[in-house]
């Protein structure tokens, strides 16, 4: 499984309130909800993001609320992978549970520039910045989490047990 696209870069501590502001949380339609993704940190996000693009960020990505709406709006927006130095733990769990690929890689998160073309190979954990020519290796998932991701999320994983 691969992800290829343009990387959009953000800083440290991108919280779930800016990923999807609470004023929209009553919306149940996923596409309508995704129309407000990243609105409070980057009002242009929904206009520039194309299917397959990546989000790159610093430390503690997804901190704050447990709202699963946060990884969900990124996935529905077309984001193929989030690369960060570290993830807040509930966001990390939620991303795995709903099948949004994420990778922890400090070097890649720091080196990749906004607008770079980036490719991620999830099997090997290899991250290639095609713009700069640099290659990085991300933290692989433990086997148990890989099984959840391969099954398309926690619910399918439990159904198949």
């Amino acid at each position, binding site marked *: 499984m691969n992800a290829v696209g343009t990387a959009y870069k953000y800083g440290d501590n991108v919280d779930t309130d*800016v990923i999807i502001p609470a004023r929209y949380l009553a919306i149940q339609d996923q596409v309508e909800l995704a129309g407000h993704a990243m609105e409070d940190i980057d009002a242009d996000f929904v206009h520039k993001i194309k299917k397959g693009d990546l989000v790159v960020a610093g430390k503690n990505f997804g901190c704050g609320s447990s709202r699963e709406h946060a990884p969900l709006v990124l996935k529905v927006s077309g984001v193929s992978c989030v690369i960060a130095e570290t993830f807040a733990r509930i966001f990390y769990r*939620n991303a795995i*549970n709903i099948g949004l690929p994420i990778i922890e890689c400090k070097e890649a998160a720091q080196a990749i520039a906004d607008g770079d073309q980036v490719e991620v190979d999830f099997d090997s954990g290899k991250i290639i910045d095609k713009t700069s020519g640099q290659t990085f290796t991300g933290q692989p998932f433990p086997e148990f989490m890989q099984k959840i991701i391969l099954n398309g999320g926690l619910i399918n994983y*439990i159904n198949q047990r």
Partner: protein
Amino acid sequence: MGKGMTMTQKILADHAGLPYVEAGQLIEADLDLVLGNDITTPVAIREMEKMQKKDVFDREKIALVMDHFIPNKDIKSAQNCKCVREFAIRHDISHYYDVGQMGIEHALLPEQGLTVAGDVIIGADSHTCTYGALGAFSTGVGSTDMAAGMATGRAWFKVPDAIRFNLTGIPGKWVSGKDVILHIIGLIGVDGALYQSMEFTGDGIRYLSMDDRFTIANMAIEAGGKNGIFPVDEITETYLKEHGNRPYKVYTADEDAHYAAEYTIDLSTLKPTVAFPHLPENTKTVDEIGEKIMVDQAVIGSCTNGRMDDLRIAAMIMNGKKVAKNVRAIVIPATQSIYLQAMNEGLLKTFIEAGAIVSTPTCGPCLGGYMGVLAEGERCISTTNRNFVGRMGHVESEVYLASPAVAAASAVAGYITKPED
């Protein structure tokens, strides 16, 4: 590394049916309670519909609390509550709380005796870590985990490492649990306890009331923590006995438990503390501020600070005074019984006479839902837990986090200040 286990590890081992667990190990544990609210439960219900197993594992061990946008603020939030209400009826959920019985979930569940020492609790709300104050392992999860938990009664966990906070000394008159946790978050940062337990120990704990401890455990997530946990002492046991009859189990950390880091904090040296926008780690003591930061609004309430101790100290400070001109003061008792108690003690009269308003329990303004949303350029001193960009309204608004004492004193002064001695 010692072979002993931390308090959290012992609770998790017991619930996984294992004699021993260590940090980093992936386990599956039995759940004593699964919690959801009106924001996260509709998503969980949608996920549960995709499951082969359609029934809940135990209708007595699920708590559904309508608290974020209730009484409903708009049609969409009303639809969400209706969806949860119908689910609760369909599955005959014992602990479903709607208008009239509801309170803010993390104040309500301990009060109702649904969370006790030794439990393993997951909740689709990040502040589920609050129940660690009672010596339980409790942590926030998302809606899919909630769905799986409701269906199977189990959840997967990566056993966390821990940071130990040794609290010593006696806190000063105006120093509360809020100041303790803001100080700690300022010290270690918003990711300082990422993936880890925060275990609070030490002689100073005996000077922290249950309400102080709830506030401290509640904000463990604001340091990135998986959970915050306190040992069980006489104060805990008195609280547990007053709030229900569920049997509880007391776990204690092993003497040789391994901690990734240890901090000693002398409570007597702490001062009223404020977290500046836009992160809870941007802390200063009120004495360090050095400029007049004018406020447009003061909020006293939330799962962090809407309990009796909080309302009592705020009322004591506002008693006989008036809220400053051009400041809106909003007081939100966290549960119906706190509301009633505050009324019986005359606190509501004090607030209203001072020019504050008193609302029915709701999360409302904390997450910019309703009941106190901020306009562009406005500033709020708030006893809530997050001051992220746009948290309470407009992206150009600002939230300053503080204790009820500081929020009340600031509401009266019109700028951020601490109570006078």
